[in-house]
């Protein structure tokens, strides 16, 4: 049984794939560093106000999320229909998160 099969098209050009692999490894290293930074930030500045701690942690998490979604899930070069599906998802997700935040703002106003 041969295990090597030729799959020819521009997307599967070996040089193109090898460049992609280098990017994947770079993203992996970045994610590892950012994970270390997330934990370190919390322990190096233990007396940081919770508001700032949340902002820093979420900023690092958002950066990591961008790397995973953009490069591993190829969202930086995806088709318009996928963007449309995700745009609708973002709207509903934002509403879900806005609900409790609106409630908090309402309580603080009273």
């Amino acid at each position, binding site marked *: *049984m041969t*295990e*090597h*099969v*030729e*799959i020819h098209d521009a*997307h*599967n050009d*070996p040089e193109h*794939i090898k460049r*992609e*692999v280098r990017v*994947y*490894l770079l*993203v*992996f290293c970045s*994610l*590892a560093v950012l*994970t270390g930074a*997330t*934990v370190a930030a*919390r*322990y190096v500045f233990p007396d940081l106000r*919770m508001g700032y*701690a*949340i902002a820093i*942690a*979420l900023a*690092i*998490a958002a950066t*990591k*999320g961008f790397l*995973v*979604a953009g490069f*591993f*899930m190829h969202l930086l070069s995806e*088709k*318009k*229909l*996928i963007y449309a*599906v*995700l745009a*609708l*998802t973002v709207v*509903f*997700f934002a509403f*879900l*998160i806005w*609900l*409790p*935040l609106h*409630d*908090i703002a309402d309580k603080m106003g009273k």
Partner: protein
Amino acid sequence: MTSHADAVADHGHHEIEIPFNVTPRPDTGVYNAKLGVWLFLASEVMLFGALFSSLILLRTGAPTLPNGLSSWPVGKDTLHVLPATVNTFVLILSSVTVVLAWANLRLGDLKMGRIFIAITLLCGFIFMGIKAYEYSLSFEHHHYPSTHNFFAIYFTMTGLHGLHVLGGMIVFAYFLTFGSKMWKTEPARFTNRIEVVGLYWHFVDLVWIFLFPTLYLL
């Protein structure tokens, strides 16, 4: 119609040909399974989004102590950060091994593709093992879902996430064994299947990326 009847007679059963599982469908620009998994992931965003929304409500709604501080426990003082940090690295590693498996399959190398799928599966086992250890530490401290709203949402979110990891592991185990037979007849379709399960796996990683700081560190 005649050819379909012949096919049924030849094989003894109906064979339904699913269109656009290798080439992109002209009107969507993607193959069907890829659109399908993105729609599924959109629903998953709402599932975990509802839980994150609940977490915000529970946290901000927690009573204030006489000293003016919130009664909501601080994750880093309550949970076990070290095993969770190790698990974060394990999931990140598994995310890169999935794309490396996919890249090798696109290069036509099934052997390397399977090696990377196996490493991904191994990472899944390590993640679940560490998660079980972490839960056992919580139970030793008599921390159960009924102990406090914090533990209720912690066990719900990490438990649901763990079930997603388990689901991914089952699919990877299938593609590592019986499912890889497709490579002999339809290598491009098999490669697409790995891409699709990879998208799901990255999403599971993505959820953990946000779960980790919000539950364990803040």
